[in-house]
Every structure is written in C-alpha cells, then in structure tokens.
C-alpha cells in the first residue's frame, strides 16, 4: 500500500499562502496538513503530486519520497487530497474496498488496487484522478477540506487540541522557574526539554492545551492562553498569545496575537495586534502593525479570492499575508485583507486597501512596481541569512516563476490606478 498525497486544482483559492508551497504544506495547529496525514498513515510509503514548479523544493525536503512521478503510482494506493485537515477522530482507513470519498464534487480520498491503477493511469495525473472518480464507487464523506485561507484559521484551535492529544510526551520537561505559573491543568501543558520559560510567564491551560516546542524561549510577562503552540526556536517577547494561536519555528513574536497562524521564520517583534490571520514565512510586521478582524457592524467579512470579493460567512476574519512581505511601522490592515508575497507595504496613516498584490511597493496609497526582481531577491537573501538559511537556486527559480505569474495582476492594478 502506498499513500499518494496530491494537490488538487483548487490550490489558487488559497493564494497567497500557496504561491511557494503545496496545499498540504500549509499549517493548521502545531503541524502541517501533510504531517497530520503522515501521522495517521505513517506506516505507508508516500508519494506526492503538486504543481511542477514546487517539485524541486518538495524533492529537497523529502529526498526519499517521489514527487510527480507517475510510475510511483503503480501500486495499491490510498490517494489523499492534500487539502484534507485530518484529525485523530476521522474514520478513514488505509485498507478497505476500492472507493472514492467525495465532498461535493471534490475527491477527498480514493482506495485503488494496483490493477485498477494500471487500467486508468495514462500520461497525466489529473486524467487518472478524473478517471477513477468517474469509474469507481463514489461515497459522500464529511471529512474536512481546507478550501480558503480562513478555513485554516477557524480550524486552528481544534487542530492544536488534536495535535496536543497526539503528542507522545506531555508535561514540563524544560526550564520552568518557580516565578512562572501554569493557570489550569498542568497536564494540559507541554514544555519541551530544551525550551526555556522565564519568570513571570503564565501558561493558561484552562481553555485548552499549551505546547512549547524545543528551543523556544518565552520571555518575562508573556501570557499564553491555550489552545496555543509555540514552535521550535521561537521567541515570545512579553506577548499576549491568545487562544487559538499557532506559531511555527524560528519566529520572534511580541504584542498581541489571537487565533492566528504564523507559519514560521516570521517576525512580529513589537506591539500591535494580529488576529484571525495567517502569516507566511519571512514576513516582517513592523512595530504597531495592527489588523482588524471584526467589522464595526459585526457583519460577515468578505475577502478577495482570485480577484473577486468572496463571502467568508464568518464575522471574525483577519489578514492573509504572503511570504517575504513586510509592513512598515504603524501599518493598519482592514478586516479580511490579503497582501501578496514579497511586497513592501507602507503605512498611510489609515486603513490600507483590502488587497495589495505581490512584488510591489505600496506607498502613499499607490501600488508601485518597486525596485525590480533582482533587488527583491537581494533583500530576501539578506533576510534568510539572518536566520542562518540560504536561498537555493531552486528557491530563486520558484520566486522568479511566481514573479512572472503574478506580474500581470500587479501591472493591471497599477494601470487601473492611473486611469
């Protein structure tokens, strides 16, 4: 039995979060969607299908597993849509009769025998998926699929609880001084062995578990309300981390964060509020950057998806910021804002527009082209080197591909502003 995790055609509804990563690499809770799938079917061999431009990066991350290789499919398969948010209570077994689990029109999973694979597999992956969907028995299932960026945020609290329940180790292993406190059940906290909790820190587990991962440092006067998780080597600087927050590895976070996902390698060092948001890697939110996550009339929030304002059917929605984007000091983000990747966003002394494209500078209420692709890369090289990383040739190729992909959208908006 082989497990095939694939990215379906709806990856673009998750822009800007998925410009540089496959849908199954998105985070929800303490782990990515893929990590949750692997946790459930860990015994199997895995293979992956995603956009071609992401394949080199995926191969580097998972050198022992195949990516976009049709030959890897010639086996008994459990095929899983990479947008599935797997939880410990989901009832999906690797073994069982051949069937296709669908939600609406979307394939969530398929169990396919090797001889059936042989019959339907031609020369493209989606042709194969469409063929088995049409020919095998379909079964309606209620497994959770992530369709839009706000789905990750609204599912985050429960995903953290689920991730905590799956931990093999719980309790306080790391440095925890007597001047720090756990408010609530101590069994609902996990402080990893190399994590450091400073004096005057409160971990509040009364509303959910708190995970502090290896190498994390929680500085004085920080309060972390569960469900919450703090990733490896992340630093929390006297912050209020409210319930439903997942912060990935190597972040520096201060101020107030509520029900948000900070994917990893991002900075929100200073004061300012971040709520109901998803922040991608290498983002820097300048001091006092603050986002609105609820409208003053408490009506439902709309968010730009593929250029169209889309109903979220939720009243609390923050912002979604793509990789490498930076905000200046004092930036104010409107409810349900989407900022693309690698943009440089300056405060205008009031609320910014709800959509700012990728690879631009936003200044004086105008979208500008910025200083060109090579300088964007130069800045990114500086940024990643500050955390001991290096942009690889594959990284730069993917950035260049994405720059060309999104440039028409940016240039059209610039042109529209000038009319």
């Amino acid at each position, binding site marked *: 039995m082989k497990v095939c995790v694939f990215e379906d055609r709806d990856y673009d509804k998750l822009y800007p979060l998925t410009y540089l990563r496959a849908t199954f690499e998105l985070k929800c809770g303490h782990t990515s969607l893929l990590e949750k799938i692997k946790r459930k079917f860990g015994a199997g061999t895995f293979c992956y299908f995603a956009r071609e431009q992401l394949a080199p990066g995926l191969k580097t991350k998972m050198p022992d597993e195949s990516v976009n290789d049709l030959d890897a499919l010639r086996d008994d398969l459990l095929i899983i849509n990479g947008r599935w948010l797997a939880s410990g209570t989901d009832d999906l077994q690797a073994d069982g009769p051949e069937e296709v689990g669908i939600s609406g029109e979307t394939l969530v999973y398929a169990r396919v025998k090797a001889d059936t694979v042989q019959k339907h597999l031609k020369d493209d992956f989606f042709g194969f998926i469409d063929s088995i969907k049409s020919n095998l028995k379909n079964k309606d299932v209620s497994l959770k699929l992530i369709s839009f960026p706000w789905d990750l945020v609204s599912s985050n609290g429960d995903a953290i609880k689920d991730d905590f329940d799956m931990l093999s180790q719980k309790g306080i292993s790391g440095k925890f001084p007597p001047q720090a406190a756990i408010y609530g059940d101590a069994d609902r906290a996990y402080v990893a062995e190399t994590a450091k909790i400073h004096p005057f820190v409160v971990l509040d587990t009364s509303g959910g578990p708190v995970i502090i991962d290896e190498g994390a440092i929680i500085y004085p006067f920080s309060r972390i309300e569960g469900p919450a998780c703090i990733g490896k080597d992340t630093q929390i600087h006297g912050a209020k981390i409210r319930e439903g927050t997942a912060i990935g590895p190597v972040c520096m976070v201060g101020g107030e964060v509520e029900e948000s996902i900070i994917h990893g390698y991002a900075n929100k060092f200073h004061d300012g509020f971040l709520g109901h948001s998803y922040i991608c890697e290498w983002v820097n939110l300048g001091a006092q950057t603050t986002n609105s996550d609820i409208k003053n009339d408490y009506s439902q929030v709309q968010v730009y998806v593929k250029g169209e304002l889309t109903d979220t059917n939720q009243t609390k929605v923050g912002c979604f910021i793509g990789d490498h984007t930076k905000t200046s000091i004092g930036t104010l983000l409107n409810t349900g804002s989407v900022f693309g990747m690698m943009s440089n966003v300056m405060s205008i002394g009031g609320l910014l527009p709800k959509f700012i494209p990728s690879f631009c500078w936003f200044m004086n209420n*105008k979208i500008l082209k910025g200083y060109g692709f090579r300088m964007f890369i130069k800045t990114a090289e500086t940024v990643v080197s500050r955390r001991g990383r290096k942009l690889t040739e594959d990284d730069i190729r993917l950035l260049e591909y994405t720059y060309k992909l999104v440039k028409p959208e940016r240039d059209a908006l610039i042109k529209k502003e000038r009319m």
Partner: protein
Amino acid sequence: MADSVTDKVKKVVSRQLKVEESLINPDSDFVKDLGADSLKSVELVAAFEEEFDIEMDEEAALNVRTVGKAIEHIEKSMKEQGKSGADPQ
C-alpha cells in the same frame, strides 16, 4: 506650446523630490544632489511612467543616476512604445 520632455521631467522631479526647478539640471544626481532615497526613487519612476504614459523596466530605470540620463531613458522608452512628444534631437 506643449512642454518638452526636459521641462516635464524637471517638473516631475521638482514635485516628487521637493526641489526647486531652477536647481535641477541635466547633471543633477538624483541621490547626491536632489536627495532621492530608495523610497523616493521608486515613486519617481512611477511618476515618470504616469506623466509620459510609458512602461519602464524598474531595474533599468533605477540605475539611472542623473536627470540628463533620465531624459534620455524616457525619450528612448517613448520612442520604443510609440508615444509622441519626445524632444527633437
């Protein structure tokens, strides 16, 4: 009579960088003489594009150091993009 490219460039530079037009000449260096920083330079390129209704490659445009070279760059872009109004050579 319509302003020449040179006149228009001076006006745009004056407006964007808050420098009197009389102090702007072809040898003026945007950074050293006129006080442009990276933010102002990006805005200046956008203002030229808007004024002359042209598209400029941002990297090439930002490598232009002086007002005279900017005029040349803009006239070349206008010619390539079929825009009228370039100064007579």
